[in-house]
């Protein structure tokens, strides 16, 4: 495991603790984004070998392009998910008038 992989795990763990600790829904969702960034970084750390991932005629050394195409999908799906979550938080806050998770849970009970 190289330094970049360890760092990506660190980003992931920061995100996980953020999701658990934060009481504000928006901050929780931002931390979910951090978790996703950790995962994306891990993929890059695994595939990057000092070269571009684009296959070009005449150049024999390149990073694994397959992983990078996966990443595009992951980022797009993550973006869609996060947008949808933010919309739902917006609907909730317009009806319950709070972003605090404890209050939301109490009022919904």
């Amino acid at each position: 495991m190289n330094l970049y992989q360890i760092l990506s795990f660190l980003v992931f763990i920061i995100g996980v603790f953020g999701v658990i600790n934060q009481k504000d829904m928006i901050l929780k969702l931002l931390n979910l984004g951090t978790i996703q960034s950790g995962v994306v970084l891990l993929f890059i750390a695994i595939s990057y070998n000092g070269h571009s991932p684009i296959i070009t005629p005449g150049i024999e050394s390149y990073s694994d392009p397959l992983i990078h195409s996966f990443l595009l999908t992951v980022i797009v799906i993550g973006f869609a998910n996060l947008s949808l979550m933010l919309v739902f938080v917006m609907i909730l806050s317009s009806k319950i008038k709070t972003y605090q998770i404890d209050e939301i849970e109490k009022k919904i009970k």
Partner: protein
Amino acid sequence: MNIFFLPTLIFFSSSILLYFLYKHKSILIKTTYISGFIILLISDYGSFVFNNVSRNLGIQLSLDYNNKLILLFFFILSFITYTLFFRKKEKYFLMIFLILNGAIINFFQSRDYFNIYVSLELISMSLFLLVAYEKKVKMVWASLKYMIFSSVALNLYLISIAILYSNTGTLNLIENLAFDKPLFFQTFLVSSLLIKSGVFFLSGWVIDVQSYSTPGVSAILTGVVEKMGLWMLFLIFPSFNKGTIDFLLIFAIVTLFLSYTYLLFQNNIKKIFAISTMSQVSYGLLVIIFSREIFVYFFIYHMITKGFIFILVDKFFTEKRIITLEDLKRKIIRYDIYLMFFILIFNLTGAYPSILYIIKKNIELGFFLNIVLLLVGIFFEKIMDNIHIEEKYKKINHIIIPGLFLIIFINLYFQNIEIREILFGLVFLVVGALSYKFFKNKINLKEINIFSFTNNLIYILGFVLMIMIFELKGMI
């Protein structure tokens, strides 16, 4: 070339066509279901990789006996759900529902870790929208909770496939079965699949989503979506070592027992059934561990039984605002509905002659599962005791139910099979049921909730850390 991948494309295409042909939605959707069903039925078993590349590099789709059977039954459940609940829904709801169907078919046919991830995301996103379609506060909250936990689970899944790919260079599921598993791959994969499976402790979202979702959606959710994690575990089970299997066995036993215990503290009808689904997921794990070859039958049995229970609950309870057991007590239910409930819930108990009993026979934990029947008996009586029927049918009921059991005992006597074991199980079930009847007015079990948002995340984190430690120590 095999055509088994076409149903996925048909559903996705119909979803787009529906946007333009909404006036003819009934014909379009029925044609979609019928053509998809027939194509799947006549398709030969086989597999292929898109673009004819090696399966190491491409996306492999496969049709075998197991996924064909599951998908055929899924078509039936999905079509019934559509007919009963969604026929008059809006354009966008139906479009999302068709996408959900297509993604589910793709999930079961796919043999590529990344394609499975994409299918899971598509299924989850469709469900988020369907669950909260009516935009009521509880629905939106349930969907949001589902989204966050699903997001956490799928990120863990991504980490596991990143670790796998860096070690083996392929994401093909079948190819990877032969490789030694890299460190932490199993930790992240098993955790993510268990969270998606709706297993007790890790999947608190199940209770909210099933309780508050749009009527009809919970049947698909409980019937198919919650067992997708189990399907994945079923596929990769041959690559698990003894330590992992032992760990899953202990986890399944503990969650089975605790979920039935937790169920006693619930009063909301849909919550009770949601928790019973969690306990059935533990049964599913035990089936995979002890008798992998019959898992597909467990899957179908549970899909049909639980799917129909939720269809009945949504159709006759939720739409009539019967939410809690107290509400149920005050209403008179039609006798045919009562009988259907009786048969379906009995089918979940695992006592003879339920289908679960036949499946359970393959699990080598007979004594423990009989003890669980005590708790199941309480669950059974808790529901049935609160369903009231018209006076004129009570007399018929007093003949039909004992008559049914008499037929069972006569059948048992002549078959001469494991009578002692069967009676042992039935005694536990009856004792459980009677103890509920006896103690229901004496002990007031207040509703408890151990699945607050933060608690659930802590359980997941604790679980992941625990398996990581086990894996580091070489125990799994």
